[in-house]
């Protein structure tokens, strides 16, 4: 049987939180980033300043694994982000436990538009916006 790593478990729990609302990779990435900053975790995804702010390629790797194992599903799109949600199999593996912190973060992240979310993250963590293709000046105008 497939054994989830700690990081994969948090990722899966995030997708299960807040009524299993489907999330874009940007929302997932920002949520996990906020989670790591709040919890000050040492053994977690390593985020680096990427073209759209904080990003960890390992999150993409784990999304592919969870998809292949049937624990999450993706709604693919040609012109937008793919959206991910937990499957019933994924829910079953997680059990009934709830992470209150993840619930709060997800609720906050999905309530924001994409520019609003970037503004929030970039203003609070400017060091992670240094390689962004969308600079703060443009965001202020939106």
């Amino acid at each position, binding site marked *: 049987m497939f054994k989830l790593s700690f990081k994969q478990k948090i990722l899966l729990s995030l997708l299960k939180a807040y009524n299993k609302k489907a999330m874009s990779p940007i929302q997932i990435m920002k949520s996990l980033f906020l989670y790591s900053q709040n919890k000050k975790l040492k053994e977690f995804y390593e985020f680096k300043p990427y073209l*759209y702010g904080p990003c960890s*390629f*390992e999150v993409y*790797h784990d*999304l*592919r694994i969870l998809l292949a194992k049937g624990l999450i599903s993706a709604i693919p799109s040609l*012109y937008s*982000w793919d959206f991910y949600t937990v499957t019933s199999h994924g829910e079953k593996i997680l059990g009934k436990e709830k992470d209150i912190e993840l619930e709060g973060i997800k609720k906050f992240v999905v309530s924001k538009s994409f*520019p609003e979310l970037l503004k929030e993250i970039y203003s609070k963590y400017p060091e992670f916006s240094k390689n962004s*293709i969308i600079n703060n000046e443009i965001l202020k105008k939106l």
Partner: protein
Amino acid sequence: MTLVIALSCKNGIVITSDGQTTVGSSGGPVRVESQKIFKINENTLFGASGSVGTIQKSLQIVSEIKDLESDWTPSLMNNVRNKLFPVYRSEVERHVVFHRTINPNQIPPPPIADIILCKVQEDGHNMIWHIAPDCSDELLHELGYGCTGNGSIFAHTLLKGFDIKNMTTEEGKLLAYNTIKLAIETGAYGLGEPIDIWTITKDQEKVEVHRLSKEEMMALKDTWVSWKEIEKELFKKIALKELEK
């Protein structure tokens, strides 16, 4: 059906292709996924459009020229063209002889290869070298980019106006992705996913060739969507300002 583009950025080269090929079968042409960019050595990449068989022969010939790893000189480049030319000529001659016996008034286009070779020289200078099917050639890095394939018109259109030479390879990857993606979505002649992206960069003393992983490609796609989303938002603001006037 192909589009290969190479961008000459300030810290290296980004070379990108679509991932679909049309090959012959006894039942008619079929579409298959295929790789169109190949590593020749530790600092050189090969990309091509044209007939699969002729590309394979070209790749084999070019791969066997070990001197291509050293800085390119006019005599080395001439040597490469001289090795390719007999193969191309023989392909065309065989093709014409064969089809003339069937219908001399209607000879289909011959199986050709149109090549782009990319390299970062020892001094960090980018080289984008285009070798045409008649083995005439041109250096395109001064232009900022080179391209080959029947989707080339998209590259010329979508890359116009960008200051590629002053971009980083990170920015170049995004521009290259945008170009190939839009060409695939628009072109009605067999361009297709998956998009393949490679880079040649010089970091301090070392030249490095890198092919983007699946994860890096996923991240790049998400960046591309982010770019498009922000473009839409900015456009709304422009439209609103016009209304306010």
